């Protein structure tokens, strides 16, 4: 089936938890270069909490599940990326209010709201070397795929490809925000840690839908 339903969502979050647990040390290492080394820890904690909160719900709507995940991440991971991911899920949930299932069109809305929420909360623009540099191509790709009527699996894989490319491109940028900003020119050449998180998310989502 080429849709995510409210029954699938708890399993998707479990998948998120698993990959962030796997990527924990890699993210810590990335964040240690020009940050405070907490990113692996906070993402693992945040998504574990989201999974627990979502699976504790009973027969909840897509919107409620996404919102619950956001609130759980905010509580468990009060770091920059924790709160931004929480914001993303909360804004995304509002964008798919009343949707019974998430296809390409709905997930395009979700990722646009996710990106806009993060950019607004973080007060950043594309090119500032933040997670938004990857969220932006994800959202834009999803819109295009929705317009061209692409199936969800295909759309997500294309979005993932554009995200990977954008992640690679963050190496050429100089950080403008957060702890990394203090390192200025030294951040050039280093892949942005928060952007890596966004790639992990879209890849896990694409893989999950492929297997549905």
């Amino acid at each position, binding site marked *: 089936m080429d849709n995510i339903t409210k029954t699938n969502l708890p399993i998707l979050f479990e998948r998120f938890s698993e990959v962030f647990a796997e990527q924990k040390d890699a993210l810590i290492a990335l964040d240690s270069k020009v940050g405070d080394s907490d990113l692996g820890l906070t993402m693992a904690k945040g998504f574990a909490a989201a999974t627990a909160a979502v699976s504790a719900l009973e027969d909840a709507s897509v919107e409620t599940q996404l919102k619950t995940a956001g609130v759980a991440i*905010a509580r468990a991971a009060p770091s920059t990326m924790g*709160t931004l991911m929480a914001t993303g899920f909360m804004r995304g949930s509002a964008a798919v209010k009343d949707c019974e299932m998430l296809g390409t069109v709905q997930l395009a809305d979700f990722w646009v709201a996710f990106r806009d929420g993060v950019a607004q909360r973080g007060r950043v623009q594309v090119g500032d070397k933040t997670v938004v540099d990857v969220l932006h191509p994800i959202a834009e790709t999803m819109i295009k795929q929705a317009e061209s009527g692409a199936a969800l699996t295909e759309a997500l894989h294309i979005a993932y490809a554009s995200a990977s490319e954008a992640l690679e491109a963050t190496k050429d940028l100089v950080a403008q925000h957060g702890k990394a900003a203090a390192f200025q020119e030294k951040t050039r050449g280093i892949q942005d840690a928060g952007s890596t998180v966004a790639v992990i998310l879209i890849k896990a989502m694409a893989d999950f839908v492929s297997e549905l």
Partner: protein
Amino acid sequence: MKKFLNNPENFVDEMLEGIYLAHPEVTNVANDLRCFVRTEPVKGKVGLVTGGGSGHLPLFLGYVGDNMLDGAGVGGVFQSPSSEQILEVTKYVDQGAGVLYLYGNYSGDLINFDMAGELADFDGIKTATVVGCDDVASSVVGEEHKRRGVAGIFFLYKAAGAAAAQMKSLDEVARIAEKASVRTRTIGVALSPCIVPEIGKPSFNIGEDEMEIGMGIHGENGITRKKMAAADDVVDEMMALILAEQSYETESDVAVLINGLGATPLEELYVIYRRTAQVLKQAGANIRHVFIGEFATSMEMAGASISVLKLDDELEPLIAAGANTPFFKHIKF
């Protein structure tokens, strides 16, 4: 690591336990030690909430008290409090007149306070936000909104706190805080690094004979690193950065804050003040209020900062007003 602590992970919570044991006039809500509030909120008053990382005492929670703030979200050392903690503090502090968020201009804090404000809005609590961005070393003129918030936020607390105590409206208190923010400039100098307990060693170094002018309170890059110089010369160099942005021709009244970053002896802060006063007088300023001591520290960092607030007829009496918190007492003469 030479510090008085037990398990570094418990450092912040044990510090808070000590504070609650010592000062019954403050307490915590939501079963979370890090949701720090005045024990007795003032009915009908605009609530003032601050927050930020630990390791800066008396900043932030130290200014919660009479004629100052009502609550603070307490983060880990140099870490933001969570939006949920800020929300819980907001809910307790709100007395129907709304809540002003007043904190330093750092990404993590901005994001979490904004989030808390959004959540508070769902609960029908009106919030407004003013951030301290007084550090002249952290962005050029024209980009003031990008500047870090450092010790000068004390003046924002003082002015907004006194205004709120006069039962002014949320808009009014926010306007006054914003005015104090726009009129405050700070420049710091660091002589040594500090140690975050969970890290256990200095996160950067300053050479045996070096100082860094403009370094941030978490060790962020400053303007120049150079050989340590005579106190008067250091002050002259620092004050030049402030004087480049403030003139005392039409309004000459100022308030001055000489802040120790942690390890610097009080004696040295007075040596710094001596020269600061000379320079300010020379520039035509009239020093109406002086605060000297530790107001915003970086654990055991050695160094100091100078903040100057340009007063006007509205701000002056608010800075003069009495205040009484467990960490800061001001008696109006």
